């Protein structure tokens, strides 16, 4: 209901803030989410459980730019 909260030590948070700024992320939250997404994809592989390839292709078809 309230999402998942994670406690991060101050030292690590400072490092995260620094990295986020250096890399040009809009916020430290955005950096953390992006980093976690990349890491989980690296470990678990790409998420193929969502829409099927055919379904994705169907969705693209309505775009005027493609045939």
């Amino acid at each position, binding site marked *: 209901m309230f999402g998942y909260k994670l406690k991060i030590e101050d030292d690590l948070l400072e490092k995260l803030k620094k990295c986020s*700024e250096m*890399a*040009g*992320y*809009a*916020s430290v939250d*955005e*950096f953390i989410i*992006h980093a976690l997404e990349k890491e989980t*994809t690296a470990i678990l*592989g*790409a998420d*193929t*459980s*969502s*829409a099927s*390839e055919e*379904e*994705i*292709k*169907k*969705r*693209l*078809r*309505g*775009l*005027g*730019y*493609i*045939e």
Partner: protein
Amino acid sequence: MSRTKWLLVMLVICVAASLLYSQLPARNRYRGDHKLIILGIDGMDPQLLERFMAEGKMPNFAGLARQGSFRRLTTSTPPQSPVAWSNLTTGLDPGGHGIFDFIHRDPATMQPYLSTSRVEPPKHNLTLGSWVIPLGSGTAELLRHGQPFWNILEDHGIPTSVFHMPANFPPSASKARTLAGMGTPDLRGGYGTFSFYTDDPTVQAGEVEGGEVIPVMVQNWRVTANLEGPKNSFRKGWPPALVPFTVSIDPVSPVAKIAVQDREFVLREGEWSDWVQVDFSLIPGLESVSGICRFFLKQVHPRFQLYISPVNIDPAHPALPLSTPASLSRDLWREVGDFYTQGIAEDTKALSDGVLDDGEYLQQAREVAAEQRRIFDAEFPRFHRGVFFFYFSSLDLNGHMMWRLMDAHHPAYDSTLAAQYGDALESFYQQIDGVLGKVLPTLDANTTLLVLSDHGFAPFYRSFNLNTWLLDNGYLALKPGANQEEGQYFANVDWSRTRAYGLGLNGLYLNLKGREKDGIVQPGSKSNALLDEISSKLLAVRDPSTGLPAITRMSRTAEVYHGPYTQDAPDIIVGYNRGYRAGWKTILGAFPRQLFEDNTNAWSGDHCMDYTLVPGVLLSNRKIDAQSPALTDIAPTILAEFGIAPAHGMMGHSVFQPPAAPQSQTALLGH
């Protein structure tokens, strides 16, 4: 009470009041009277605007240009609307906001996907017989990163309203009033799927681009059919939810009565219905999804032909988030009635497919423009302070569809149709002039007006099939024995021998080791040399029928983008020459045999080319100091209007400030 005690009590009261004040919503703290109005006009082209102003057809724009400022506005790389409006929204380039094209690919699976949002069904389900009970709800996720300017404004207490901003579905969490725009799907989850019902045996049934042709039988002057809605995730196999409807045809007159759920209405041949609300039942009596659609009775006799628009998310009962606050879409519905919520509302595919003809398409497109105007007319008078942004789509979509009827050089030019509809685009420009005419009298000394477009426009005469070129030149290989012209989505590509591929309207990617699923190109000096080689060869390609270069700019994203998402971008943005664009089939990984093709599609104007060839426009009632303003300057300009410094990473500067004088070499050296 002693003086000391009295002072202490007063101090405590002051601190408490200050704490209480700081907890109040930011919106309540702005006391200034400065106003900023932004009219965002997708695809307004500076050359066409200048022509119409010179011909006296856009007097309000001419007056604004004369008394204020008019500049060309540098667009994004590439100049595609989701990219361009994201540049404007965040003040970042694509490396910062992560939108590079209408279409991205996942390098781990090589699957293409819509770049701006992802709609996911529930991850876990409980199966009971033929019923599947989702545990938790599905989600919609905005894939554009970076901080939108309206959130920064609201954090500073500036009230902000933003209507129909592209690449903002689902709307990012915000205290501002925002309504989603381009990128919002229909109820079937795509860019829009129309349904066309006919008993004409010569019309091929099945899926067509952007829609579906459904064969029906007329029996006893009656047609019974189903309207397809969203996938029913409560049923095993996720069959589509259906709404049955019947059409009773008058045997003599070109009239029919349509009955759908508890609604009945009569249409004459060639008539559009009002919006019709339909409920798609997912679990009978328990769970349903509401949508809205419009019926068009194209023909009654001799053949039955009925078009139904894509089923839009119902703004009164949105199945997916459409606005912030969530109540805004319902409030608007109460005021103006139903309206298109689908991000690209003009049904361009129905025209390209021949399901609607030019006149029928224009009727629909004019209704879209009229709806946007109704929302504008309802909301603009409410605006008294802060920032008001409103987006208009009609110049872009009708620039795409109507270019061929005002350009005799176009391969799809038709003199008969041109005589009828050759001025259609011009009339949409004039409608926008009418909107400006409503705004101009409201301007006072405290109000700044910006009128801008994300890019300009150009003819789309010839297609260039990038993947065919890569195949012909040995950068891409097909599996042994594969037919070049069969399959889409790189179905027959031999990735173990492929070094580069094109995807999307302007993207060229290397098949990079460690990034792509079956990457073979070593990152570093080898990949750089390969990019140089491909770039120089593509820039040298000439169209044999015109002698013109097909491509005039190859932008290396590692050099032109800034920010953490550059690593997800294409390696090169291909900038096509004016008149040229990526071929229809190359965009999603097919290989037509011809390298160049005439574009005979109704989609006849475009802008997905070299960004320097299709700048947008920027007009203001104030003097614009910047000589070459860019889309990335707009967010800093908006913030500067309220004394707010650009946010971290923003690249541009206020267009109302003279550009900083370049530092001399001596100064740089510290002498």
